[in-house]
């Protein structure tokens, strides 16, 4: 994505346009010219689909609804009011945008297949409505006088140029999105919405914006399509095949990239159209079969599309040289970064993070039961307990993924209860997760930048913060541009840590960052965490690797069955009978106390 320079992309687009125009001038057969125009229109539809579903992962089968609304708006105002398509198409775009907003608000609360099903329903419903309204087949009238005023041209190539303009425009918009925090945020949402939210990304807001852009592009394509074909029917504007085509060209060519729909359209549309023209009489459904087979083949063999398959092959050779083992973090002076002054030792400060009687239940099970604890600024505080004690649930409640059923949580004086995770992040709390979900095709730097947006107003600032975060965890420049897919687990953990640090948090919630690490790797990780703490970041860490925790944390809170059973310095806590019982069982304590056993 961002690792290719913008210049290369612009150059690519310019070359593509140039080549296309050249080909257009050379082709004299008006039928082939029509196909060239259609290729561009479907490429635009693919780009529209990509803008929502490709980048964010929410599969839409219903882009025909925007396509059809754009086309029909233009048609109706033309036929009924004589309004020129030059105005009608933009009007269609506005209607499309409006529909996008309404549909977005209604449907974004749904997940996965429910979202897809609902999106499927919208154009089908529109289809029935328009059939009922009597628009079985509407032919656009030919304007004998001043045809150009009504966007009617005898030379098919003019349409091709218009379509090219639309496609290039869509490509440029897609490029701008991809290279900005917009695209990165969508990608983060696609990979792991929870982690994205915890990193400060307001998922709903970005999804809405994507939907609106997507709807606008699709509506414009629909309007232009109607003008090119001069005839609209509910089936051709709202039908299944329209949505399918938008999806197929993007899927086949490459999901989540502006080149994908273009590649897909260039390959599939001429193929399907030619087959349809040649064999359409004998085998009437050939187009649909071709698209169907294309979908099946691509999803089984190259699920992300041709573009990525090729690119993976090319890039893999280079990336192998870059991913090196992590250098041992220097245990020297901490570099001067945004070091917050630590409160002097011995002074009992107000806790930075305070939980008071926090409870959260699932069904009848109390996952968190009346927990009260405080973390002082600058401390490293461990949260331990046997399996199922409710440690991660506690984090999820602090973070905003879960609402507490009772109790208060405050951070630096302000309440966290009811805040969404991205808002919690913006207040200064960072979080890592047990399972690291990296974006394998993006570089380490790009992975980390996603976390930087919450605290950086501009994109360049975000990049600087990301670099700084990488340095803090000891991932050197060499790794910054390596593909995340090539990293070892330890490097991934460090990257995850960097992502949380990129937002310059005051408090870090670390969820089992040390789990499963070998002896050397553990030592490295501990050194890095200590260093981060010395730079001023308060750390709360969940672990059950006791040896490591003993060396790291200054104080522990011990949970068992959701309740706090002990608190204090490690050496004390571990001797606490309640704690021993929680870990080793009651009988251990009984035996330990009975010298005759």
């Amino acid at each position, binding site marked *: 994505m961002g690792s290719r320079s913008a210049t290369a992309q612009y150059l690519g687009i310019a070359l593509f346009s140039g080549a296309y125009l050249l080909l257009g001038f050379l082709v004299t057969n008006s039928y082939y010219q029509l196909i060239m125009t259609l290729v561009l229109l479907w490429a635009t539809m693919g780009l529209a689909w990509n803008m929502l579903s490709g980048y964010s992962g929410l599969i839409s089968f219903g882009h025909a609804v925007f396509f059809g609304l754009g086309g029909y708006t233009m048609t109706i105002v033309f036929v009924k009011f004589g309004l020129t398509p030059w105005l009608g198409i933009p009007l269609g775009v506005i209607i499309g945008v409006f529909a996008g907003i309404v549909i977005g608000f209604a449907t974004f*609360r749904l*997940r996965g297949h*429910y979202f897809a099903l609902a999106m*499927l329903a919208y154009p089908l419903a529109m289809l*029935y409505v328009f059939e009922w309204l009597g628009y079985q087949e509407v032919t656009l009238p030919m304007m004998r006088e001043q045809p150009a005023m009504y966007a009617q041209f005898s030379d098919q190539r003019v349409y091709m140029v218009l379509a090219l303009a639309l496609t290039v425009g869509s490509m440029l918009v897609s490029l701008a999105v991809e290279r900005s925090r917009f695209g990165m945020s969508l990608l983060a949402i696609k990979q792991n919405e929870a982690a994205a939210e915890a990193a400060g990304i307001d998922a709903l807001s970005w999804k809405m914006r994507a939907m609106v852009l997507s709807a606008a592009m699709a509506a414009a394509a629909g309007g232009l399509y109607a003008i090119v074909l001069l005839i609209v029917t509910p089936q051709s504007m709202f039908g299944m095949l329209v949505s399918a085509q938008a999806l197929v060209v993007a899927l086949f060519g490459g999901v989540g990239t502006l080149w994908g729909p273009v590649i897909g359209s260039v390959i599939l549309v001429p193929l399907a159209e030619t087959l349809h023209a040649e064999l359409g009489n004998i085998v009437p*459904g050939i187009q649909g*079969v071709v698209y169907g087979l294309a979908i099946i083949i691509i999803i089984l063999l190259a699920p992300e599309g041709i573009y990525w398959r090729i690119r993976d092959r090319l890039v893999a050779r280079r990336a192998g040289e870059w991913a090196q083992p992590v250098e041992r973090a220097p245990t020297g002076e901490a570099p001067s970064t945004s070091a917050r002054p630590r409160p002097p030792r011995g002074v009992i400060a107000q806790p930075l993070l305070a939980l008071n009687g926090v409870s959260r239940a699932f069904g009848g099970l109390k996952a968190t039961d009346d927990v009260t604890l405080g973390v002082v600024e600058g401390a490293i505080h461990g949260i331990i307990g046997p399996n199922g004690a409710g440690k991660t649930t506690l984090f999820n409640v602090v973070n905003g993924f879960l609402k507490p059923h009772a109790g208060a949580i405050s951070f630096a004086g302000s309440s966290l209860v009811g805040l969404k995770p991205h808002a919690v992040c913006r207040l200064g709390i960072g979080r890592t997760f047990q399972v690291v979900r990296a974006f394998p095709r993006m570089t380490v730097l790009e992975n980390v930048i996603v976390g930087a947006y919450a605290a950086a107003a501009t994109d360049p600032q975000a990049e600087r913060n990301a670099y700084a975060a990488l340095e803090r965890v000891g991932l050197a420049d060499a790794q910054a541009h390596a593909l995340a897919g090539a990293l070892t687990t330890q490097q991934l953990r460090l990257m995850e840590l960097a992502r949380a640090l990129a937002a310059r948090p005051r408090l870090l919630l670390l969820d089992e960052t040390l789990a499963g690490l070998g002896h050397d790797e553990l030592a490295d990780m501990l050194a890095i965490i200590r260093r981060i703490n010395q730079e001023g970041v308060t750390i709360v860490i969940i672990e059950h690797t006791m040896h490591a925790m003993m060396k790291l944390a200054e104080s522990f809170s011990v949970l068992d069955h959701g309740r706090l059973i002990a608190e204090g310095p490690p050496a004390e806590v571990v001797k606490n009978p309640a704690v021993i019982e929680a870990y080793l069982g009651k009988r251990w304590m009984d035996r330990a106390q009975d010298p005759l056993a």
Partner: protein
Amino acid sequence: MLIDVFQALAAGLLVGGTYGLMCVGLSIIFGVMRVVNFAHGDFMMLGMYAAYYLVTGFGVLAFLGPYAGPIVGAALAGPVVFAVGWLLHRFLIARVTGARVVTAEAEGHYAQIILTLGIALVLANGGLILFGSQPVSVQTPLSRQSWEVGEILFNQARTVAFVLAPLCTLLLYVFLARTTLGKALRAAADNPISAAYVGIDVDRCHRFAFGLGVGITGVAGGLIASTQSFQPYIGFDFVIVMYAGVVLGGLGSILGAFWGGLIIGVVQQMSTLVLPYQLQNTAIFVVFLLVVFFRPSGMFGRAAERA
């Protein structure tokens, strides 16, 4: 006016019976196995054409006469569609379902959705090529005759379908509840990991369940085939109807799906009292959206699946 309401209600019940059976088939796949199958409507279409060719087209069952023929045709449509479903699962669908594939449920569903959409396109358009676009239906004199109860007309073909559909559902229910294979299917869907621990071949069970699900819907299609005309694209019309019924009835409940389908049928027919007939399916979409937004667990659903 009141008589119109009763007529619509009667028509809705009759239609709803077969919708119920159709939804039961989907419920096995979507409700129990949580496999998203967008091609389900096209399997129904295959069932319709299977019945058509058996009875009218090739006249294989012509010897049974015009009354028994369509019924047997509908019954035989089941195994035909079962076989197609079994093969598709073996070679295509199994590659995107099952424990070995899914790291996160969302990812598994993505591939299932796309793959079954592709299959839907191939089936529908392939059907167009093989069967042509002319609407056909299974000929039976019953479709043109009606029984009269009071002033309400009960179309005979639809009534027969209405009687047979719950019967099929009952048979399926008994199969799943009483037989070892049926219980193994349920176990494999309930908890594939535990099922493997007790020695059940989960892959084969899923395959059989998939075939069964589409086969049942194929039978429903065979029944509907004698009550209305159809063409290869009819599957897309019915996909939302089927999902609406299953979701309304509640995921995980097969009998619930039957009730869901029945209610959907009633909604559809009764909506014609206030809406023009072209919008009858729109009414169903609205019901579907309402259920998914406000009560995703449906009427009898076992897990409140946050949609």
